């Protein structure tokens, strides 16, 4: 009986958890609640993935109202994959959260922090699971508002400004999204995505539908930080609390990418997006600009958290490159990079959070020689960095391999060259930090550093091993991404 209600529970559990956390005054109790919720969610998501893998698409009528009239939660292999990604990351980082949050958030705000965190998780899972355009907007607002609050809780005073900047940009994005949905609603009379896709047949080239597509693309691209709409991201990631940065970098932009793919492939369909419109070329140019521009900026950052944030913009470029390549292999490469980048970036930000926990700084001059005192954490940074570069044997290689194959299938040899070239820039910004960490004389603060507590170290190591593991065993990543890409390209849903 309970397996039939998994789609609802996936979203309701974090919502209930957030309520309980808000009632509790003590940060450690709120953490326990958040931990319990975070550990159940991956089980639900894996259950859903299993159900869709075995039995195909699941449809859940919220409130008992038959779709397309009521809100439908619709799970196919692609969003089950995204749900697994978000909830697994949520579960792995929760043990890590306790010490980091105790260190960075004032005691009286810790319970609120977990409440807001769970709301953010609820919103992201909701976007991924819902099959209703407006419901997705509501969840987008839930997760975005929670994100602004999470970022503003950073200790640095600039966190407030970063949160405000993101608030403005994020609100513009959400407004564009809802304008797009409104236009589609006026043309089709439905908010259910699957129903919308059917009713769009025949009116794809009307002005209103094209305007809707433009609004949706720009709105969601703001959320996923597609170059040049990424300007909110570096400051937001740099000044948010470590825990919030880890979570957001691994999940928030990924869910936005999911939503964009959902609209492109399941609602508008391949023929509209690629045959009639130059979407492929727009994304190609912007992705390449992100891969090179953001990577180059990353090389010159003194604040390493900010450097990783710019690297995120570049890596999102690889994900959207999958949309531009538009054949099954390339798209699978983009989707698998969703997953791989999430685990690599989470591991890197966790290592950085551990360093901040010990020395209270993430500036490059303070990191000098820290490997002598924190060899494991510095080692995590090396492995994660190799993943970002895409060295064989790491998860990052798998993504770039698929992207490269996709480019060759299209006959775009020059794109393969560009992927390799941009990876070379990643060598620069990763290598620069690794060199400072391992081969310099320890800075005054680094001399006093030591490894973080096990509760922080073990989750970090787990994600680091995952970075290597998914470089060899690709059943859960590449195989699932392959199925998802197949589903999208055949207009699934």
């Amino acid at each position, binding site marked *: 009986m309970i397996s039939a209600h998994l789609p609802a529970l996936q979203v309701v559990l974090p919502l209930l958890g957030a309520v309980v956390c*808000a009632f509790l005054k003590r940060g450690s109790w709120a953490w326990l609640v958040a931990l319990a919720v975070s550990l159940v969610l991956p089980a639900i998501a894996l259950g859903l993935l299993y159900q869709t893998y075995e039995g195909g698409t699941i449809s*859940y009528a919220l409130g008992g109202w038959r779709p397309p009239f009521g809100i439908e939660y619709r799970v196919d292999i692609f969003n089950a994959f995204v749900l697994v990604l978000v909830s697994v990351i949520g579960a792995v980082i929760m043990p890590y959260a306790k010490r980091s949050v105790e260190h960075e958030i004032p005691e009286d705000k810790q319970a609120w922090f977990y409440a807001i965190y769970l709301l953010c998780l609820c919103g992201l899972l909701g976007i991924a699971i819902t099959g209703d355009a407006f419901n997705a907007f509501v969840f987008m607002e839930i997760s975005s508002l929670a994100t602004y609050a999470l970022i503003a809780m950073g200790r640095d005073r600039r966190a407030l400004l970063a949160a405000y900047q993101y608030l403005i940009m994020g609100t513009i994005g959400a407004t564009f999204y809802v304008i797009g949905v409104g236009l589609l609603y006026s043309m089709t009379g439905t908010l259910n995505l699957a129903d919308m896709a059917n009713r769009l047949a025949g009116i794809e080239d009307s002005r209103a539908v094209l305007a809707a597509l433009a609004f949706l693309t720009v709105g969601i691209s703001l959320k996923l930080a597609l170059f040049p709409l990424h300007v909110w991201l570096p400051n937001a990631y740099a000044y948010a609390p470590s825990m919030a940065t880890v979570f957001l970098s691994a999940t928030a932009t990924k869910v936005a990418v999911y939503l964009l793919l959902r609209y492109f492939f399941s609602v508008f369909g391949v023929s509209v997006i690629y045959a009639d419109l130059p979407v492929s070329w727009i994304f190609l140019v912007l992705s390449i600009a992100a891969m090179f521009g953001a990577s180059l900026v990353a090389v010159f950052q003194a604040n390493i958290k900010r450097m990783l944030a710019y690297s995120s913009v570049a890596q999102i470029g690889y994900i959207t490159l999958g949309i531009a390549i538009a054949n099954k292999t390339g798209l699978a490469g983009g989707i698998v990079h969703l997953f791989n980048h999430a685990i690599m970036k989470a591991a890197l930000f966790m290592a950085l959070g551990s360093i901040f926990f010990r020395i209270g700084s993430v500036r490059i001059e303070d990191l000098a020689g820290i490997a002598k005192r924190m060899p494991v954490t510095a080692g995590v940074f090396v492995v994660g960095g190799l993943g970002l570069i895409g060295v064989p044997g790491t998860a990052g290689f798998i993504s770039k391999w698929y992207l490269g194959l996709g480019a060759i299938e299209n006959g775009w040899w020059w794109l393969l060259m560009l992927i390799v070239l941009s990876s070379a820039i990643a060598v620069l910004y990763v290598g620069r930090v690794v060199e400072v960490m391992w081969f310099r004389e320890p800075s005054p603060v680094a001399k006093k550093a030591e490894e973080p507590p096990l509760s922080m170290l073990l989750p970090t190591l787990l994600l680091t091993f995952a970075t290597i593991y998914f470089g060899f065993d690709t059943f859960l990543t590449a195989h699932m991404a392959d199925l998802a890409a197949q589903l999208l390209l055949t207009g699934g849903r």
Partner: protein
Amino acid sequence: MKLDVVFRIAAKIFIPFMLVFALYVQFHGELGPGGGFQAGVVAAAMVVFYAIIFGLESAQKIVPPRVVELMVPAGVGIFAGVGVVSLLLGENYLNYSPFGGDSQHGQEYGIILVEIGVLVTVTGTLVAIFYSFVGRGRE
């Protein structure tokens, strides 16, 4: 303002009617215009009105900040909890049909319960925002 008799008497006359109006809007939500959000705004306006006339301290004696802070999650809890009851009764999340004798009454009761949750959260949130703006720089 505290010394102004006209304001104080007028406020004392108005406030009970504001409360009744809030409840009127609340319980007509499932049939006509109105509902938890609008009622919550009217109820919060009542607290704001009282605070303007009689001062923040006396308003906070009647509606303490601690209670306001609990009202915000409490309403969400009511909303989410109603859905969980549907699940426990063997229906889909937020399906109100099993709440009453027949599904029509069930839906009606369900809407009323959820709207109460909305009322609690909206009132709490608006009063909390008002308190934090007015209380700024006082401590």
